[in-house]
């Protein structure tokens, strides 16, 4: 390899393509869209800790891109985070803060606290002035007790006993506002979260498919993936489909023999 390739990349944003992209956009090229998660995400505080919930539909405009994606992200063994907004942003920001928390645990020798995750998330999002489109419901239980927070794309946060985010947040909040009370039991908490997510799934077009739930208590976390599956496919043809040769018309066939064009010789193995 030549000398120009020896230097490792310096890191940070590479501006190499900016001029080309601007030129292409002027010429009429449509930039690829972002995958948004539509979404209904919720969290509530109950007797022994917090319960988080999320739907599983990811949309690209009017089309469902993923029917069963995971919106409840791992932050620490005792802290989980639901994400709404641009899927890449929620994924990237939760992964990043999760790694930072792990390093912090090694440095301090202690269990992570929810406010630590909160501060890391809000400072990151604020510094990007809302361009990182991640709306999060952060919940967990640490030495100071159970905590539930919402984080907005511009970096503001709220501390709440129950919270909803995403396009289905109004549908879910209507369920919480009518039925939430302090000191819910585990079963009541899970049922209320599932009811709120289902309200989003059925009444919001940006949310759908299944209900994911995560229950966090002191010393124990249960991630109930696909806790409810209220949307099975309604009809499947028993006949099935066969795609036989000839069903798609072949208009033109050309076979090029490669052997006469390529020379096979003995040689040394490639160097690293």
């Amino acid at each position: 390899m030549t000398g120009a390739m020896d230097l490792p990349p310096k890191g940070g944003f590479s501006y190499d393509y900016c001029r080309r992209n601007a030129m292409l956009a002027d010429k009429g090229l449509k930039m690829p869209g972002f995958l948004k998660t539509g979404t209904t995400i919720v969290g509530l505080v109950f007797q022994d800790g917090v319960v988080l919930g999320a739907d599983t539909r990811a949309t690209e405009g009017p089309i469902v891109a993923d029917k069963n994606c995971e919106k409840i992200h791992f932050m620490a063994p005792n802290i989980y985070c639901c994400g709404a907004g641009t899927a890449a942003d929620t994924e990237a920001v939760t992964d990043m803060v999760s790694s930072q928390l792990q390093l912090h645990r090694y440095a301090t020798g202690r269990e992570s606290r929810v406010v630590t995750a909160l501060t890391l998330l809000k400072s990151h999002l604020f510094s990007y002035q809302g361009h990182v489109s991640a709306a999060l419901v952060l919940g967990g239980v640490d030495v100071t007790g159970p905590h539930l927070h919402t984080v907005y794309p511009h970096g503001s946060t709220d501390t709440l006993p129950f919270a909803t985010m995403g396009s289905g947040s109004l549908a879910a909040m209507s369920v919480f506002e009518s039925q939430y009370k302090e000191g819910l039991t585990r079963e009541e908490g899970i049922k209320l979260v599932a009811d709120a997510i289902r309200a989003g799934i059925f009444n919001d077009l940006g949310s759908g498919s299944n209900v994911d739930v995560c229950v966090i208590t002191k010393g124990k976390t249960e991630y109930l993936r696909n806790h409810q599956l209220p949307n099975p496919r309604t009809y499947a043809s028993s006949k099935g489909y066969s795609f036989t040769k000839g069903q798609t018309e072949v208009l033109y066939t050309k076979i090029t023999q490669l052997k006469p064009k390529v020379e096979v010789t003995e040689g040394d193995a490639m160097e690293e």
Partner: protein
Amino acid sequence: MSRRGDWVYENNGGTCVAIAGADYCVVAADTRLSVGYNILTRDHSKICELADKCVLASSGFQGDIKALHKNLAARELLYQHQHNKRMSCPAMAQLLSNTLYYKRFFPYYAFNVLGGLDSEGKGCVFTYDAVGSYERTGYSTQGTGSSLIMPVLDNQLKSPSPLLLPAKDAVTPLSESEAVDLVKDVFASATERDIYTGDKLEIVVINKAGMKREYIDLRKD
């Protein structure tokens, strides 16, 4: 969401399909009415019976669709009074095209599929754009789920090219029950991936004996 003060249309979503057979025609549409990310109703019919062997399915802006269906039904009634017989499907096809083009510079935001039996009793399907361009085909779809459904119908109901001579029949050789089965399967698939399609499927089958209506449930999320 748009800042223009003069945008008078809105898309209420939904999908319509029609398939023509040798002696039947299947016309189907979902029953979901939506606006933005909200559902207005799960039980709204997009299908209008215009004559005894002629059915229109429309998706798009329901305000314009209701007006269009009312207009056509009134014209059909006038035809009945003047000619002492019901309008045939090809005649209605032409009338619909003219009605749509009449509003060429303030169109009906309606994407239509007309299905029925022609004067010989063979299935016929006519497909339209918003301003009245139409064509008789063996099958068609319109609406938000149409790009998901059309390739499947193209594969399963392959129509011979209309440019071939001698002219080949465009109607499918499938039986009535096979066509209905295909329509149900194809809608269930479109519902999985299109957020605006779902709730219930209304299927109307027209044959020599008359018109039959069937409903099946679709995903409600």
